[in-house]
């Protein structure tokens, strides 16, 4: 015997029911009623707090799983998932078989679902929510018959705001089909507002397919994709490796025919219990070597949890680049003893993450911390042989710049002079020799328009100073004496260490 069950959330008027199981629905409880009212009528009602965030995560998981019916899919609102099955249906026989298969699998997970299939997203939405016959789990509008299929559905199915639906109903327009015959101009006149009319017409056009509707899929669709399904689920990682290697060589062949190289490949594995997982490998140069892809993917194989076995492996080239543009044969002489570091960067990025492996790039600025930037090596190497601006001058700069200048206490001979003694990280250091100052003024074009609370940048006087042990530091005095009004006295900072 199943118990009536409800999910509740607190609202301005106390606890309200947001969702019910079928037992509760049968005995006449409705969503939106107060929990206390429902309890009074049905004392056996069990309730739990609703967790919308977890619901959303579960829905996302389901959408990820649904990738087996088509790579383009995403969640739709709080309770829906859309899947673009263009070119997929024949893999399941026909569209009806696909719907049967999907219904059956969802039911086997315990997910009650209603499906709609149509030429457009709008029509499929309408069919799934309002077009399912009571005894069926799905509704299908055959190709080209969308107009007829949704004509009988209520106007709520058009994905309009509640106020607009009410307005339509007040005008006597209850079915979508009633909108077909009204001339578009007169619709606008009836609504007295071009906004509402435009909205209604847009939704109608989207449902009928005369206006393209942008859809953002969960993952960018892969450029190339190869897959391999198994009659018996794979469990051992050796077997998976073998099949992944096969897929990699297939993918490489496809890439070769299109003169492309993969920048990002993703290996997705669908487990027998309906869950899915994926591994991603990114390459700094468009790659057409199956061995290299496999080496990167193989390192992550240990993280795969095969569960009850894997029944489908798919390898996608998510990002590709023109391969022939950066052919290694041209870039380096054959006799060169050094290989291109791109492969090494790929391996390091694969292990330690994109941001762990970086290269420096100069920038056009004379403020030391702004004169250079650290970028992921993966992106920079891909931009192959970018000519960086030539070094303007061999300026006196420390090998290491602190992430942010650290304040130091300074004793100096004269206010404007170099430090004679300073305390950095609680150690007092006596300055033996110093070189400078090198005056670096703020960039005036940045000082023109400052946000509220943003400090006026100040002039810096940089010194290279050497303490009595020979260690050299790069320090600066921020601000000048008696020249900038309204700013406090100058202060000293340590900015870098000379190696």
């Amino acid at each position: 015997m199943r118990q009536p069950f409800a999910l509740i959330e607190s609202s301005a008027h106390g606890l309200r029911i947001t969702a019910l199981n079928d037992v509760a629905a049968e005995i006449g409880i409705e969503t939106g009623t107060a929990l206390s009212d429902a309890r009074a009528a049905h004392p056996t009602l069990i309730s739990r707090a609703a967790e919308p965030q977890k619901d959303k995560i579960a829905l996302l998981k389901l959408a990820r799983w649904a990738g087996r019916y088509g790579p383009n899919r995403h969640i739709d609102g709080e309770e829906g998932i859309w899947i673009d099955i263009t070119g997929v249906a024949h893999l399941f026989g026909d569209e009806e078989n696909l719907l049967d298969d999907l219904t059956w699998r969802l039911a086997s997970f315990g997910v009650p679902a209603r499906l709609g299939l149509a030429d457009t997203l709008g029509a499929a939405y309408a069919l799934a929510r309002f077009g399912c016959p009571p005894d069926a789990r799905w509704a299908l509008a055959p190709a080209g018959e969308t107009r007829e299929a949704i004509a009988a559905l209520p106007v709520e199915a058009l994905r309009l705001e509640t106020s607009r639906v009410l307005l339509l109903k007040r005008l006597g327009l209850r079915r979508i089909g009633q909108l077909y015959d009204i001339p578009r101009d007169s619709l606008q006149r009836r609504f007295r507002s071009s906004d509402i009319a435009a909205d209604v017409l847009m939704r109608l056009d989207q449902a009928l397919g005369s206006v393209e509707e942008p859809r953002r899929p969960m993952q960018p669709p892969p450029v190339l994709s190869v897959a391999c399904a198994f009659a018996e689920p794979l469990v051992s990682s050796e077997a998976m490796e073998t099949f992944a290697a096969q897929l990699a060589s297939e993918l490489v062949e496809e890439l070769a025919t299109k003169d492309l190289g993969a920048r990002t490949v993703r290996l997705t594995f669908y487990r027998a219990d309906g869950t899915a997982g994926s591994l991603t490998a990114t390459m700094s140069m468009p790659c057409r070597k199956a061995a290299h892809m496999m080496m990167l993917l193989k390192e992550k194989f240990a993280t795969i949890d095969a569960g009850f076995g894997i029944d489908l492996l798919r390898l996608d080239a998510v990002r590709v680049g023109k391969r022939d543009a950066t052919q290694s044969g041209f870039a380096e002489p054959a006799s060169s003893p050094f290989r291109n570091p791109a492969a090494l960067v790929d391996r390091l990025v694969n292990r330690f993450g994109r941001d762990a492996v970086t290269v420096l790039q100069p920038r056009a600025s004379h403020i030391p911390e702004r004169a250079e930037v650290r970028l992921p090596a993966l992106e920079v190497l891909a931009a192959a042989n970018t000519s960086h601006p030539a070094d303007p001058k061999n300026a006196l700069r420390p090998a290491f710049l602190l992430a942010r200048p650290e304040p130091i206490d300074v004793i100096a001979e004269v206010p404007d002079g170099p430090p004679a003694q300073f305390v950095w990280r609680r150690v007092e250091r006596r300055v033996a020799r110093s070189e400078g100052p090198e005056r670096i003024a703020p960039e005036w074009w940045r000082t023109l328009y400052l946000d509220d609370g943003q400090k006026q940048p100040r002039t810096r006087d940089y010194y290279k100073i050497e303490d009595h042990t020979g260690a050299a530091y790069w320090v600066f005095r921020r601000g000048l004496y008696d020249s900038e009004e309204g700013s406090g006295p100058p202060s000293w900072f340590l900015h870098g260490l000379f190696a």
Partner: protein
Amino acid sequence: MGSGVSIQAAVIEKLRSRILSLERHAPRRGPAAIPEAKDRGLAAGKRAPWELGCEAGDALLPEGLETNAVHEIKGEPSAARGASAADWMAGIGFAARLAVRRTDALSAMKSANQPWVLWCWPKAIAGEFGLPSWAGFAHLGLDPARLIIVETARAAEALNAIEESLKGASLAVVIGVLDEVDLMPARRLSLAAGEMATPCLIVTHPASEPAGATATRWRIKRLPSAPHRFDPRAPGLSRFEVALERCRARPASVARPPFTLEWSDETRRFGLASVMADLQAETRRARSGADAPTLRSY
């Protein structure tokens, strides 16, 4: 008979070369065991001599630094337990300059394309010293456009990254900055360095235990820099007190007393510091009459 002898000689030669190839990964001892990597086309080109650039230093290592081994560089700890940033910087500075010597030697060979250098350290150490700077590395003499910086979350990952880089056969030199390296990782690094003939410089905490399985270990102390040629108040060329604490190829070199090297930014080589020149500079400075200044806190 003559042919019999030559066949014998050929057999012995063949066996010798086989033993050599078997022992390539074994620790080498003695000056005769300078490794041969000629059979690898890839490795052969990399065997440009890697020297300090001055006679005093190169007398210790007649063949130069081994390019297929790990070299450890340690600063001189200023305190019993800890080490200041300055102590670290002495070792880091020396390692960076050795890397300059290496890249210069390679670019002198016309056949090679511009080699890359990899700098690897864990986040904890990077946080102490900040980031390698483009202009600063250019000032030192390393091409910053050919520098890959790897910053890992943990020290063990840094070792992993260094080992992987050594095997990549695409770098001129790998510089690792680490607190310490245990024997096992050090051996792994040494094997990886030997495999593809990529040298590795590891700078370790000045006060930590020395790593094993290294070809050389240097102890570096920063000295007050040489007098500036024109300005007596400015720091001049950097000076290091260099001691060779361990040398696998020539154990005899270890007994030498430490010596003072001076790095010239222009010639990009080390030179023996001249104390006589200092004295002259000192007198010049004294003559210019710098009185003891009065200091104030600003």
